């Protein structure tokens, strides 16, 4: 039996002792509690308190009557969404984009981090790293504009493919290319930034392991496979679990900026739906209900993937 469980048993035995002990511990660590207070208050005020606003998902919220005065409609908005014939399209678009993101974008920072790790010249490596972070700080609006200039019908890439293939590829004007463009832009913008956490994990690898492996005659690939990758495995799993939590998040700004009459079909995801209902139509309750549903699915995905990680012998998220 662990000592923790013993403590708990002892405390259950006598309530008075527990409170007394707690009080003396608080007194002893009072400055630590003072340090803790701002964080706790922050989370209470800005994260937990606003959660009461979720009730509008179950109301027909009208600003005039307010949160407390609006009509209670129960699960009307949820029923309404599942009664909307196109909801499966919205869900399918969301999942396709998410899976593509997982398959093509997720490994990109890992591969890039491994490549950076193999670099010999430290000064050049640092310069390269800084340059790789730059795209992250470019607004998505600018990224989309650049894409339009290059891939649009008068753009250099468009013209080049047209002259090579003999026919044009409508990068910006077809539902088939739409998702690839989105994934491509995400990779271009975020890969460099995404390497940070993996590079941090790589610094923890004991250099003696590499030296020993080299003495034993292991080549670069073998060292990568048997030392580097296992060393960052827990970080990869951690990132994967976090990624599961945002399976239903596609963002709406990026998609709305890229969407037009020709490719809109592929851009209709749940986040776009929330934007359309909440901001464009002022249907706050409907938008909140869909947002809430998404959050519940996300929490479920995080918890279950964490469980799976535990079963596979990984440390997981918590």
């Amino acid at each position, binding site marked *: 039996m662990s000592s923790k469980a013993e403590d708990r048993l002892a405390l259950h035995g006598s309530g008075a002792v527990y409170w007394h002990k707690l009080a003396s511990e608080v007194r002893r660590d009072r400055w630590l509690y003072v340090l803790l207070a701002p964080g706790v208050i922050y989370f209470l005020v800005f994260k937990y308190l606003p959660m009461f606003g979720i009730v509008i998902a179950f109301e027909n919220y009208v600003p005039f009557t307010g949160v407390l005065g609006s009509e209670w409609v129960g699960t009307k908005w949820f029923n309404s969404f599942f009664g909307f014939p196109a909801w499966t399209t919205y869900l399918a678009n969301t999942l396709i984009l998410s899976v593509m993101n997982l398959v093509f974008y997720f490994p990109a920072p890992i591969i890039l981090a491994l490549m950076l790790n193999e670099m010999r010249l430290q000064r050049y490596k640092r310069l390269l790293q800084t340059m790789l972070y730059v795209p992250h700080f470019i607004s998505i609006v600018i990224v989309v504009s650049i894409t339009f200039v290059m891939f649009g019908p008068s753009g250099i890439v468009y013209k080049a493919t047209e002259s090579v293939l003999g026919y044009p590829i409508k990068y910006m004007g077809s539902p088939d290319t739409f998702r690839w463009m989105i994934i491509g832009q995400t990779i271009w913008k975020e890969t460099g930034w995404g390497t940070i956490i993996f590079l941090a994990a790589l610094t923890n690898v004991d250099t003696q392991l590499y030296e020993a492996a080299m003495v034993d005659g292991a080549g670069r690939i073998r060292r990568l496979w048997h030392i580097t990758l296992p060393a960052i495995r827990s970080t990869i799993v951690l990132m994967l679990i976090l990624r599961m939590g945002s399976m239903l998040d596609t963002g709406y700004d990026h998609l709305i900026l890229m969407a037009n009459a020709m490719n809109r079909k592929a851009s209709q995801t749940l986040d776009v739906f929330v934007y359309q209902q909440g901001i464009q139509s*002022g249907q706050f309750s409907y938008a909140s209900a869909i947002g809430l549903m998404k959050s519940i699915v996300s929490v479920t995905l995080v918890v279950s993937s964490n469980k799976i990680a535990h079963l596979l012998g990984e440390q997981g998220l918590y």
Partner: protein
Amino acid sequence: MKKLVSLILAAMMLLSMAGIAAAEEPFEITVMVPEFTLDVDYVEENNPVLQAIEEATGVKLKMLFMSNEGYGDNVNTTLTENNPPMVMAVTDARDPSIINSARAGAFWDLTDFIADKDNYPYLAAGAPAVYQNIAIDGRIYGIFRSRAFPRAGIYYRLDIAKEVGFDREVKTIDDLTELAEKLAGYSNDTYALNMCSYYAGTINVITVAMGAPNNWGIDENGNIYPAHKSPAYLEGLNWLRHLYEIGGIDPNFATIPTSEWDNIERTGKAFMRFDCLDNTHRQQEWFENNAGVTEQVFQSVGPIAKADGSITVWPQNNGFAGEILINKKGVSEEDLPKVVKFLDWCNGPEGQTILNAGLEGLTYWVNEDGYRYVPEDKIDEAGMNSKMYVHDMNQLGMGVPGNLENPPASVNRGVTALRERYNQLNIELAPYAVADPCFPLISQTAVDYGAQLSPILTDAAAQYISGIISEDELRGEWERWGETGGDKMTAEYNEAYHASIAQ
């Protein structure tokens, strides 16, 4: 001690009550409107315009200007306030949140005031059709901000048309086709028709000219049906598809932002546009001021006949742009008549002149013919005064009984001919204008899923025009629209329409 305090308090109360009784405070009205003038701040203190309004009406006007960017969001948050402005301009009268708020009782019902000709003559003089258009469940909550009825139309570059050998007036669809085809052949780098991402308006104009209804029609049995069920709608799309095929439309029209629309004409990239008629003289004005043009280079198209000789032009707009609402939270029942009376004054000759033009000797002068004008040496001063003191008060101007400004504005120089033609066309086209019968009606599906449903139709139309999808696929998309909620919307509009007729 306690006694002393209570004595003092009682004395203070008496004094303050006496003070209220002695000097009658002017009635204060707070008004929130969108702000467009961002370069100069509004001046409230010692504002001669406010003083003139107070003198004329006994109302102390307090203007709250909110940037026009995101004004709709501002309106929504204002609705949540406990102490909102008494009067509020709304730019989209059909926003679901406005409809929901009106139904929940957020705004005063003005139906009875508008019927009261004796007390509110100017409000009562408004066109009943427009009042019907802004009604919610048959009740009128807002005073509409009036706009000319037909407004939509076609205009083209007169000089280029002559160059390609078209030198007569456009009177039939065939004329229009010939003109468009000739313009398309002008050069490889230019297009005949100027289209952008707001191509839904372009499609609306051409399909209505072909005989299709304006968004929604009424069939011979008195039932509502969507425009695409009319064969003329497909004819209109085919007309555009043909023009696209012969290179008369920019292949990327669907991705061109609306802000580029004017520039395409100004840089001479396209020569014809289906949009607002009043843009004809605005473009002409631009060419005169920036391109050194002296003669008329733009021409607007009058009524045009179909093959069978009948005329249906153009899609009628709804006669207004937004409305003025009175918040229930800000105005008590006994104060309400005072506020409505003030809005009535805003629509009279005096109110219209002050809100739109300011004051004589401050922002304008009057010439011997009785027209407003600004002398050459006072242009800067008058402009500054206008921005400081009048600012965007014209956003509160409704013009319900039409333009009554006194003295009237002087006629502009230069483009007089085109402006006169515009005024004349407005009268000439009015009998042929096609109204949207569903505008005053409310469908719950349209409120809930309008943002998802309408792109299905417009996207399909764009893809059909560009030759990406065939006619069968276009019909498939129409069917998808129906299944996704369009059929339900049609049924709801029918129900509402029949109920409104029965009344």
